[in-house]
């Protein structure tokens, strides 16, 4: 339960993780080999694995890796019922996703609570994105309740779902389908204990999604790794393009000018994927492409000032325009990681921004190649 907030493609609150990935359903094997399992709890429906609340170095390493996009598809726990602490028949049932990062946050944040944790098969995707895709959904809740024989384990008929699972779950349909009523808990797992202590009441603050700097920062590595492949191709093209000049093709020029062009590409990506997300609230405007374009343009201008003299004016201008376009485009993709951009809004932004970004890129290319002939 209580994932953290997250934008689709990438949820917020430190526990965020872009959607994507997933795909196949998760097997139910090796539960007892998992390092977070510590014995079992006997129930009328059979033994249930007991999990502890400690997050160790292996968990932290796993978290770090998925933040960089490594093995994110496979970072899963087996779906099913788990026991946290020493839950009895009247203990609350917390429902969550089987993305291990999410599961770790829940068992850690709910430390000290005696509860059942019902893990849905969201194919290794966080609550928010899985709800958007429907895998954290009404049908899966009903199926999992039935399959784990939850009605035999608890004597109440209430499930606590993370609020950010609501886009995929119809509470009234769950009640119809398996007799359990749904209580939406807080957005963030760290509020679970407080939520339970006051009798399952979420304060308005617990219901609101926020997007603090550390959450935005946690999402930046995967923004970079996501563009590495296209960036590699772009770099190859830039080296080829850099060699074009009065001498048809010059290896020396390809190297010198290629380095400058690729450095500008890398700086543009960093401006859009790291600088813009971190400075998001302070960059002017509401449009991500404008924020990103500004960040890229200003950084390019500063870098070119430092390089004065080593570049001809057309080449310098070309790099400035290109960095602005790249940063603007990459920053626009960060909309997928934010928990406040609507699809209607993003589409509106893209219809305006893509032609401008394309125009800047073409102008940069013409200046870059044309400038080589003017020397």
């Amino acid at each position, binding site marked *: 339960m209580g994932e953290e*907030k997250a*934008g*689709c*493609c990438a949820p917020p609150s430190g526990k965020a993780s*872009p*959607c*994507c*990935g997933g795909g196949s359903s998760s097997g139910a094997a090796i539960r007892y080999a998992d390092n977070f399992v510590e014995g079992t709890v006997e129930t009328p429906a059979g033994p249930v694995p007991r999990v502890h609340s400690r997050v160790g170095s292996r968990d932290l390493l796993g978290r770090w890796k998925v933040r960089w*996009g490594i093995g*994110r*598809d496979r970072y899963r726990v087996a779906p099913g019922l788990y026991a946290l602490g020493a839950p009895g028949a009247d203990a609350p049932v917390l429902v969550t996703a089987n993305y291990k990062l999410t599961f770790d946050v829940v068992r850690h944040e709910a430390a000290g609570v005696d509860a059942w944790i019902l893990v849905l098969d969201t194919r290794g995707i966080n609550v928010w*994105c899985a*709800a*958007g895709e429907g895998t954290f959904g009404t049908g899966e809740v009903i199926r999992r309740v039935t399959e784990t024989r939850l009605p035999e384990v608890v004597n109440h008929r209430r499930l606590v779902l993370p*609020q*950010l699972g*609501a*886009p*995929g*779950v*119809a*509470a*009234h349909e769950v009640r119809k389908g398996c007799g359990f009523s749904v209580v*939406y808990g807080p*957005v963030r797992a760290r509020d679970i204990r407080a939520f339970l202590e006051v009798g399952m009441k*979420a304060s*308005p603050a617990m*219901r*609101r*999604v*926020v*997007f603090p700097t550390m959450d935005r920062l946690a999402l930046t590595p995967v923004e970079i790794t*996501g563009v590495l492949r296209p960036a590699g191709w772009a770099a190859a093209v830039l080296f080829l393009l850099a060699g074009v000049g009065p001498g048809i093709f010059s290896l020396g020029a390809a190297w010198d000018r290629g380095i400058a062009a690729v450095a500008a590409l890398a700086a543009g990506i960093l401006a859009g994927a790291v600088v813009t997300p971190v400075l*998001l*609230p302070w960059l002017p405007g*509401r*449009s*991500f492409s404008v924020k990103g374009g500004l960040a890229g343009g200003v950084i390019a201008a500063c870098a070119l000032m430092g390089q004065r003299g080593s570049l001809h004016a057309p080449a310098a201008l070309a790099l400035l325009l290109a960095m602005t376009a790249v940063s603007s485009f990459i920053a*626009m*993709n960060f*909309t*997928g*990681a*934010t*928990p*406040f*951009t*609507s*699809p*209607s*809004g*993003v*589409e*509106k*932004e*893209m219809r305006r921004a893509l032609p401008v970004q394309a125009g800047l890129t073409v102008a940069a290319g013409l200046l870059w190649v044309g400038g080589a002939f003017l020397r």
Partner: protein
Amino acid sequence: MDRFRYFDGVATVRLADAACIGCGMCEEVCPHGVFAVRDRKARLLDRDACMECGACAMNCPTKAISVQPGVGCAAAILNGWLSGSKPSCGCGG
């Protein structure tokens, strides 16, 4: 998220007043405080804060709320345009 606002006047969320029974589910599930129940009816307090996640419409027992839900993600929308299908995060990893 008072500090973050996206564009005004684009959200597709609509509330059919007559069908509303004032159960308050929309107010409960909305992460941006778009709804509030007043005098036993839900009100659209802040439509421009809506990010079209669809939680309200999904959990409205009388289908009084409509919204075109989806992922507010540029890459997904671009994928949708290029493949001519519904926007999806097809980043595969």
